[in-house]
């Protein structure tokens, strides 16, 4: 039996068109030979698939017709919602829009917060470039001790070298020969006790009598028991305002020794338009605060108060007129003794070194302990 005939037999078998003898023979063979049985089944499956294909094809054709009918019907009513195929870019955007949004937000927040943080940090550390500073000197303890060690020979009693050098220092000057003394308020601010010391090493204990925080002035008085008087003052106090361009000078203690500074009166108003102060062009350093400002003729015209950091040659001094009004306004009962200001000026006409020689006995370093 050829393959073809066998196939036809199997086909007939599946269509139930075999004689009972053929059927029996086939079934016996299938039972005996599993490979053959498999083949019979395959033929059946394949034939079914083929027939199925035909059926489905006609079904599909019908469905397509229905689809077309449906399309025609619906196209009239509604133009089908045109959902365009998206371009790759659109697909990408749709898929990652949220992620990109989040990332962008994070980036923006990070950038701005770090910029802001840096700005804040900078302004916190650097402060303003131009600002007003008071010139009271913060004494560097360590440096002082080293200096003391170098300068003192072993013979000196250790007590002297362990003396508290004080925490701040400034300058002050004598107001009256009987013990009144002037400095800046910010020098003695928060002081427990005060000492003044001049170039010769004379130390005197002083106490605060009155201070004016607004004008930055302080009135002190010597309380030392051994004190007998400063002697005759060489300078007088000027009531009127000085003129622009006048040559002015000061003595002060920005360090241990007295330091002379000279310049001109560069403005009749102080920092931020403060009319109670002069602007002067004298190089000043911390420790100069409270020093006297004198003009060429030896008139006391102001009290050194501070300078502008970051601005060249801008220092400030409180006008003497304000010192005098302060003294006038002082209630009598606050003063142990009435104040009698010096009237005579011994400095006028003297050359500068002579003036300074006379002056320096009346300028003291103010030491503040707290």
């Amino acid at each position: 039996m050829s393959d073809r005939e066998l196939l036809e037999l199997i086909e007939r078998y599946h269509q139930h068109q075999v004689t009972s003898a053929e059927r029996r023979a086939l079934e016996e063979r299938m039972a005996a030979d599993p490979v053959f049985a498999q083949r019979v089944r395959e033929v059946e499956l394949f034939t079914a698939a083929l027939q199925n294909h035909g059926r489905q094809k006609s079904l599909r054709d019908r469905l397509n017709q229905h689809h077309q009918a449906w399309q025609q019907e619906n196209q009239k009513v509604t133009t089908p919602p045109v959902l365009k195929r998206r371009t790759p870019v659109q697909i990408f955007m749709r898929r990652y829009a949220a992620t990109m949004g989040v990332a962008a937000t994070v980036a923006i927040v990070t950038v701005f917060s770090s910029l802001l943080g840096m700005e804040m940090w900078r302004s916190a550390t650097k402060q303003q470039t131009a600002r007003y500073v008071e010139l009271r000197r913060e004494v560097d303890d360590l440096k002082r001790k080293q200096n003391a060690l170098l300068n003192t020979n072993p013979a000196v009693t250790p007590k002297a070298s362990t003396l508290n050098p004080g925490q701040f220092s400034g300058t002050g000057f004598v107001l009256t020969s009987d013990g009144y003394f002037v400095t800046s308020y910010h020098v003695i601010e928060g002081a427990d006790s005060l000492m003044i010391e001049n170039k010769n090493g004379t130390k005197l204990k002083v106490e605060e009598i009155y201070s004016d925080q607004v004008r930055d002035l302080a009135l002190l008085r010597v309380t030392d028991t051994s004190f007998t008087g400063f002697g005759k003052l060489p300078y007088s106090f000027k009531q009127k305002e000085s003129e622009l361009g006048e040559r002015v000078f000061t003595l002060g203690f920005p360090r241990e020794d007295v330091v002379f500074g000279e310049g001109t009166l560069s403005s009749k108003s102080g920092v931020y338009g403060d009319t109670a102060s002069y602007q002067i062009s004298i190089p000043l350093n911390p420790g100069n605060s409270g020093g006297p400002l004198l003009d060429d003729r030896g008139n006391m015209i102001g009290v050194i108060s501070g300078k502008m950091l970051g601005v060249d040659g801008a220092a400030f001094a409180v006008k003497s007129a304000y010192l005098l009004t302060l003294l006038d306004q002082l209630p009598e009962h606050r003063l142990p003794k009435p104040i009698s200001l010096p009237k005579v000026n011994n400095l006028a006409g003297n050359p500068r070194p002579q003036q300074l020689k006379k002056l320096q006995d009346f300028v003291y370093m103010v030491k503040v302990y707290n």
Partner: protein
Amino acid sequence: MISKALVTDAAIIEGILQDDDAALSRLYKLHFSMVLFFVQSNSGTEDDAKDIFQEAVIVFYEKIKAGQLELNCQIKTYLYSICRRLWLKRLSRSSRFSHGMIEDTESELAPHVDADAEQAEQNELKFEAMGNALGQLGEPCKTLLEDFYIRSMGMAEITEKFGYTNVDSAKNQKYKCLMRLKKLFFLDYQVPS
């Protein structure tokens, strides 16, 4: 409302059993827009919707014909779940996020949906493979086989139509064609294990 829908469903099934073309037309009109909407709102086109819907209808149709349909919900629901399942499968295959996407909660609604969707897919594959195989087979083999197996023409008729000298040579030709078709078909289609 529900009873009305049920009546409609019964009428459609009856119509399909009686080979009534109007039933299919009705099926199309009633349910296709729903599937179309679903597919279009899930990044598909009208053609996609048509393919999916037809696959589902074919399974539905053949199950009715074979009397195997266990319908415990409305036809609408049944078709919708099959289409949904088919479309999600197709999407997940073309997408990068392919895992676990179609863990569906709706499978409780129609427990046979999974199997039916699977069948629809196999059906589609088989149909395509057979179509391809027939296409490659060329004439006159294609027509010969179609005449014999699909249009159920007798061998005598075929001998006459194709002008063979006798029935035997027609049979011979048919056998050769069938063997070639078989080879082509199984090149394309793997029987699911």
